[in-house]
């Protein structure tokens, strides 16, 4: 084994691609703004500078480790260097920290504190730029941008969209859509991955917390919450619970304290989706039309397909997403009671996703003129609401959701992770319903973090070819292959965010490697511990089908095209 020396610690060199990874392996939290392990190396922020034993300084993110190297990460020179960079960044930065949405979570703020910048000597003579509020999903405030370029690289490298990029030069440089357009006029799909990597509030989630408080305050409104599969394993993050722990019970309790009238589980909606999507898949297999069937749960993907590959929109399942199937069912369920009590049911969906904020406004997700989901708030926003109330979340007792929408299958619970939708559909379609069948599907190749996964599953005399992709760049590569006739599939699952909703744009940040693994394990744990693993074993489904849906599947559960 070969070694290098970091701050006097001997660190073995394994397959690390840069010195920065080794520094972190040595247990030193070297600061960075522009480094993300799954993006290309940019080397712009100069925070990760180190000094070698000859006094030369270089950025550790873009330097290969060499055996015998001796480096220091925290010399006097480096301290002064970092401090000056932060001071210069702050000098051209909106410093209204107390009223900023990122207050307390901002990496610039915390680094300024850490390196000890107590005053800024330079005046800010940057022209104030307008805030872009045009998107329903995210807000862009160029006055808070530090030009690290993380959003630009995420949007183009991971998502293959490139809605924003650097423009102009020198002190006039900014990150913007072409010609300074508003985000709503670009190809932006609202996935929010740019907000995930943004160290400041230059790109942040568009918040709808006020609307929710207003609804709770309104006695005429029956405020119903539904909680998405991926929220429960991330919400505890900010309250000191171990990463990836299922905090559903505590979240339900917290929502009741906050004043929600009913609390339901979106997993039930996912079971509805499994039923409908499987049916649709079986029909398409029979007719041979519009194959492969693309999943439709991810609104960012649906929008991406519409923007980039309109010729493939007919392949997208007509099913609404679990949230958008569940909301009309809730409204139908309370329709009579609402009339009797003179109330109005108000659906609040708690989602890991920013794109859902736009999905609910789509006319194809409405039943007639009725908007079925009234508002979407992200995991980050519900965390903020819990804090506003002052609930000690970590100490809450767990409670179960309200009937009749509290029971769901394990298959539904894994909708929040890449491969989950496929797995649930396959379980439903499998003629065998025993433990071996579940294990066979599990190990068919649809699980795991690879950006592109393939599997072949045989049911009876039919072999199904399946592809699972996450990250829209991977989706677009796959479609190009399908277009070129190089790939043939029956079923394709796409999720816009890498690893699926567990790392969605609305989830608590940061989402480093440990968090990613913990969330993956956490969501599979929910499935493992479910007594019902197959959607068709959910005893509530029959009741809903007979008493609420009553043959109106196409009106309530599908997108009206």
């Amino acid at each position, binding site marked *: 084994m070969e070694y290098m020396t970091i701050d006097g610690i001997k660190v073995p060199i394994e397959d690390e691609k840069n010195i920065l990874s080794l520094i972190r392996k040595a247990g030193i939290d070297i600061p960075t703004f522009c480094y993300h392990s799954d993006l290309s190396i940019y080397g712009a922020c100069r925070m990760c500078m180190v000094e070698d034993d000859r006094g030369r300084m270089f950025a550790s993110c873009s330097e290969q480790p060499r055996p015998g190297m001796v480096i220091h990460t925290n010399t006097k020179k480096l301290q002064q260097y970092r401090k000056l960079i932060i001071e210069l960044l702050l000098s051209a930065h909106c410093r209204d920290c107390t009223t900023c949405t990122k207050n307390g979570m901002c990496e610039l703020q915390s680094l300024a504190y850490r390196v000890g910048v107590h005053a800024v000597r330079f005046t800010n003579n940057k022209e104030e730029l307008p805030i872009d509020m045009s998107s329903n999903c995210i807000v862009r405030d160029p006055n808070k941008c530090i030009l690290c370029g993380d959003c630009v690289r995420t949007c*183009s490298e991971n998502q293959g*969209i*490139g*809605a*924003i*990029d*650097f*423009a*102009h*030069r020198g002190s006039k440089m900014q990150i*913007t*859509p*072409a*010609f300074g357009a508003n985000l709503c006029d*670009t*190809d932006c799909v609202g996935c929010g991955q740019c907000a995930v990597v943004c160290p400041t509030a230059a790109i942040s989630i568009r918040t709808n917390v006020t609307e929710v408080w207003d609804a709770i305050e309104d006695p005429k409104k029956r405020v119903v919450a539904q909680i998405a599969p991926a929220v429960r394993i991330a919400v505890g993050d900010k309250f000191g619970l171990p990463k990836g722990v299922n905090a559903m019970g505590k979240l339900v309790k917290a929502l009741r304290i906050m004043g929600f009238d009913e609390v339901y589980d979106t997993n039930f909606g996912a079971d509805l989706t499994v039923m409908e999507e499987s049916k649709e898949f079986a029909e398409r297999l029979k007719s041979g039309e519009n194959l492969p069937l693309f999943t439709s749960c991810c609104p960012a993907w649906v929008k991406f397909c519409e923007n980039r590959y309109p010729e493939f929109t007919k392949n997208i399942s007509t099913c609404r997403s679990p949230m958008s199937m569940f909301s009309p069912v809730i409204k139908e369920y309370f329709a009579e009671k609402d009339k009797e009590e003179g109330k109005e049911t108000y659906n609040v969906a708690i989602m890991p996703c920013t794109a859902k904020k736009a999905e609910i406004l789509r006319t194809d997700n409405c039943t007639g003129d009725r908007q079925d989901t009234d508002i979407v708030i992200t995991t980050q926003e519900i965390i903020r609401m819990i804090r506003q109330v002052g609930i000690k979340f970590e100490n809450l007792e767990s409670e179960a959701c309200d009937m009749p929408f509290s029971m769901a299958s394990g298959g539904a619970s894994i909708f929040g992770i890449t491969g989950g939708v496929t797995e649930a559909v396959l379980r439903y379609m499998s003629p065998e319903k025993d433990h071996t069948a579940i294990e066979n599907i599990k190990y068919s190749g649809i699980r795991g973090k690879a950006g592109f996964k393939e599997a072949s599953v045989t049911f009876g005399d039919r072999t199904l070819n399946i592809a699972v992709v996450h990250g829209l760049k991977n989706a677009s590569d796959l479609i190009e292959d399908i277009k070129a006739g190089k790939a043939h599939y029956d079923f394709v699952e796409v999720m816009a965010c890498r690893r699926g909703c567990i790392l969605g744009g609305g989830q608590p940040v940061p989402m480093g490697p440990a968090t990613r693994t913990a969330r993956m394990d956490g969501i599979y744990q929910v499935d493992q511990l479910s007594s019902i693993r197959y959607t068709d074993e959910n005893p509530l489904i029959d009741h809903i089908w007979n008493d609420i849906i009553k043959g109106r599947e196409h009106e309530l559960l599908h997108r009206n095209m």
Partner: protein
Amino acid sequence: MLDRSFFEKADEFIAAHGKGKESLIPIMQDIQAEYRYIPPELLTYVAKNIGITEAKAYSVATFYENFSFDSKGKYVIKVCDGTACHVRKSTLILERLRKELGLSEKKNTTDDMMFTVETVSCLGACGLAPVMTVNDVVHPAMTPDKVSETIKKIKEDEA
């Protein structure tokens, strides 16, 4: 909406330089040589055709001071404000030009689309400072009065 001839011209340039992303700058140069500016719709069109995003094309175009999205006057006057010209009082040249033509830092093209006044960082003719160019014809050792004369002459020729 841009006339169809613009897009046909762009097609020609794209064909001449190839459809790779490396063709972006030569294509933009050709467009600017043809129209004295880059019509924004045309940049979008080119980006789409050579397989890069509109935002990336905009990024490249705005990096270079030379590319412009605003249509320019018939006479493009560039005042050098490089070090040599600056110390030899190029500011006075610029001020006189703007005064004569009723222009400012924000507004650099006259309403009749006759004149555009720009500053450039160095024209590489430091020995002739202060320098300005009118449609790439070099006018050396300028003084404010020579500016007025030049403008007067152009206006007379045009009348």
